[in-house]
């Protein structure tokens, strides 16, 4: 078993209203960052997972996302595995 560092990015579905992202976008415009377009706010999770291979760690992390870490109705996720 090897320890892996799994980084998970959970984002609100593109089709859904993201009021937090909008508020951050407005604030950036107010600060003069006129070049900013769409802003979306999500979550970043970092886990330490023990697994035999990086693929096995990714499979486990996906199961965690499907069951708990992301809501399939409103969110999408992506993940990345590195050696810890």
């Amino acid at each position, binding site marked *: 078993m090897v320890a892996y560092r799994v980084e998970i990015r959970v984002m609100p579905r593109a089709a*859904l*209203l993201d*009021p937090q992202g909008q508020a951050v976008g407005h604030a950036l415009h107010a600060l003069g960052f006129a070049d900013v377009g769409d802003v979306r706010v999500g979550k970043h999770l970092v886990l330490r997972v023990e697994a035999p291979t990086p693929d096995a760690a990714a499979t486990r992390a996906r199961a965690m996302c499907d069951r*708990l*870490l992301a*809501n399939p109705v*409103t969110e999408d996720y992506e993940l990345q595995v590195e050696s810890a």
Partner: protein
Amino acid sequence: MRRVAVVRFPGSNCDADTLDAARDAGSDAYYVWHRDRDLQQADVVILPGGFSYGDYLRSGAIARFSPVMAAVTAHARAGGAVLGICNGFQILGEAGLLAGALMRNAGLRFLSRPVRIRVEAVDTPFTLAYRRGEELVLPIAHGDGRFVADERTTAELEAEGRVVWRYVGDNPNGSTREIAGICSAGRNVVGIMPHPERRTVPAVGGTDGARVFLSLEAAHATQHAGDVRAVGGHHPGLC
């Protein structure tokens, strides 16, 4: 008299009002701790409002895995009545017992104020003492109350008459189609964002919420009358 289990999670804060409302309506209401696995022969389960597990990760996401939820799910799958109020609604959504999800209010602010809602469906165990189309004033108190579901699910809810309550006039949180509450396909699992348990006696500003709890006893009485009619049906001339 119906046995009503009010489930308490760490962070529930509407549990006492909910218990009182059910008792005032004539039910035998009692608490069940979220670590219990036994609902003690409940006829009805209510998940009260609050902030279970501090709303960490997503509202209701962690409570949905509490040990008691296996029993709540089994009760719901067997056709038993389940009501989720506010955080309870969020938990039922996370548990997959109700469609959709409750997301951050469109205006980003926590809202605590009375709202006007319309009763859209009276064929659920929690609304049968209301008239269809009746308007009520109930308080909301939530940060994550924006009901969201994909178009197919929303169309299905509408087609099957599963939108139970809708905001009228002002949509406080940006909910899809002004949805304030829905029910399951079997109509036995119901979720509502406003707080009926906070409007059950005149002293606190109104009684518009009382019939949610009175409906339970009315359902029981009707069911009983049905049994009597079924038995009585053997006698010609009766009914």
